[in-house]
């Protein structure tokens, strides 16, 4: 083999690889740009309501970036191409999680409000009673009033907490308030 043929035997495969690599570069860059936009769309609400799903998308994007850095444009194109769909799934999951939590919040808050109304109604009547029913004395009734006030102010605090964005803290507070409310109803002979 002459030197010319030897050189060609080495250069041609490299040129073909380079040509293929360059052919995938532009589509990969376009896919990366689309993926970047999709990842940006997850900032804010989605991060708050579906953090794990968002982390997954961000990890996929980081992997695609690594492939670009290694000039594996074909691999980057494949990886980046999946990201917009994953981001869409994360957004849908975030919306579903948000809806579920708002519903749970409304249900729990509504339930405690009804509990408070029932207890308040009974306390109002008992305050007018000349003699308290069996098993109840003035101290019990006074404590019930105090407990009712505490639950009412606790509920207002939980609402503020929820509005401020501390949804899990607010939900935990509602659970505690519901337990207190059940004890209150029990002390009033309503459970």
């Amino acid at each position, binding site marked *: 083999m002459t030197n010319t043929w030897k050189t060609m035997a080495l250069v041609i495969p490299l040129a073909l690889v380079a040509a293929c690599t360059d052919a995938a570069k532009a589509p990969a860059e376009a896919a990366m740009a689309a993926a970047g936009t999709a990842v940006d769309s997850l900032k804010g609400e989605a991060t708050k309501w579906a953090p794990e799903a968002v982390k997954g998308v961000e990890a996929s994007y980081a992997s695609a970036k690594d492939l670009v850095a290694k000039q594996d444009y074909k691999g980057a194109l494949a990886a980046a191409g999946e990201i917009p769909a994953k981001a869409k799934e994360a957004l849908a999951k975030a919306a579903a999680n948000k809806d579920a939590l708002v519903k749970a919040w409304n249900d729990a808050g509504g*339930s405690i409000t009804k509990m408070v109304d029932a207890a308040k*109604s009974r306390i109002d009547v008992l305050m007018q*009673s000349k*003699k308290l029913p069996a098993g109840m004395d003035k101290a019990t009734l006074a404590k019930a009033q105090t407990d009712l006030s505490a639950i009412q102010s606790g509920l207002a605090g939980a609402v503020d907490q929820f509005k401020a964005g501390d949804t899990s803290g607010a939900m935990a507070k509602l659970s505690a308030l519901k337990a207190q409310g059940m004890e209150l109803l029990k002390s009033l002979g309503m459970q």
Partner: protein
Amino acid sequence: MAETGDNEFTQWHTVAKGETLGKIAERYYGDPSLYKKIFEANRERIKDPNLIQIGWKLRIP
């Protein structure tokens, strides 16, 4: 049966033989004179506070 305002925390009492609104009020409030509270809370069923029937389910406010 339930009307607006009734919920899982509404307390109910089923009228038994020999009971009057006064006796029911005494049981829940300690004071028979508060029977009117029960009467008012059940106006859709009780027309006359002296006439209640066994088996009626009354809400106790």
